[in-house]
């Protein structure tokens, strides 16, 4: 197998770390670019663990120019970009009646706009290569739209629709675009729940437990692998059976 170049956004977070680690252990031929902003402590630890196999790249996902610089940097070093995982995102929950407009626009920007900018930034190299894999990370909120998440649910539903539309646009160029919708996963957001909230959430999951980041990462890795060559426009929910 030859070199495969992979860019993961939100790579300093729990899920981003798990996805990066999953690719790193999949093959010694995988090189991982860790898209990070100000915080990069976890990314730096991963680089220390896998020297010469991964590298940080400064990336403000809501800014097209930042994407341009990051992709140029990657192409300058590797002359190719095989996989993009749009993992970065944020949520700011609250009832619509009292939601500040900034909470709406910032969440839409961080989740939906960012995915648009990322996909657009990698289009030219992937079309030029006539191959590519894009895996977008949405959320079960995109499908269930819980109360208190009008902004986040709308943004992630937008990511799902973007994925399906783009998949049709680029299918003939051997570029696949898929989206993963995780349910409750043991990351920063779940860790921030109080014990009562955790218990309530777990009671709604048929498997009666939260997912592990590694369980999401495994699906992302599969969608990006050669064996997933005929899967595009798919929406994969990973949620312990909710629905």
């Amino acid at each position, binding site marked *: 197998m030859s070199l495969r170049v992979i860019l993961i956004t939100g790579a300093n977070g729990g899920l981003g770390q798990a996805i990066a680690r999953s690719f790193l252990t999949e093959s010694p031929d995988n090189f991982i670019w860790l898209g990070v902003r100000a915080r990069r402590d976890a990314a730096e630890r991963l680089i220390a663990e896998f020297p010469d196999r991964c590298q940080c790249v400064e990336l403000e996902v809501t800014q097209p120019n930042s994407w341009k610089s990051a992709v140029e940097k990657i192409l300058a070093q590797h002359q190719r970009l095989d996989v993009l995982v749009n993992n970065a995102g944020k949520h700011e929950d609250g009832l619509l009646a009292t939601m500040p407009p900034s909470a709406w626009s910032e969440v839409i920007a961080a989740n939906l706009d960012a995915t648009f900018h990322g996909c657009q930034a990698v289009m030219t190299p992937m079309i*030029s290569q006539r191959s590519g894999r894009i895996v977008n990370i949405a959320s079960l909120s995109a499908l269930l739209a819980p109360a208190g998440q009008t902004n986040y649910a709308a943004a992630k539903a937008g990511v799902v629709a973007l994925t399906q539309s783009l998949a049709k646009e*680029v299918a003939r160029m051997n570029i696949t675009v898929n989206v993963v919708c995780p349910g409750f996963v043991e990351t920063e957001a779940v860790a921030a729940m109080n014990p009562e909230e955790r218990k309530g959430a777990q009671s709604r999951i048929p498997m009666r437990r939260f997912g592990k980041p590694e369980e999401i990462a495994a699906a992302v890795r599969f969608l990006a692998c050669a064996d997933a060559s005929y899967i595009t426009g798919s929406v994969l929910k990973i949620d312990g059976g909710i629905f």
Partner: protein
Amino acid sequence: MEDVLALKEKIKTMMVENLMLQVTAAEISDDLPLFGPGGLGLDSVDALQLVVALDKNFGLKIPDPATAKVVLLSVNTIADAVQKKLASA
């Protein structure tokens, strides 16, 4: 003159290969409309691929839809744009 013919052949071959067309390069006449009925029948996705292929193969950048409408009419118009690009280099 020979150079222009060779350039047009190169463009046609590039189109057949990149767009996976079901015709041969020889079947594409120089002035055949690339889009619309009665022409080669390319669509917007083909146009996207063509823009990337022209940049990759000839360094010809098509920065906006207005330019695309002028350049991507036929093999003739593409060849003209490539020649102008080469002449200005």
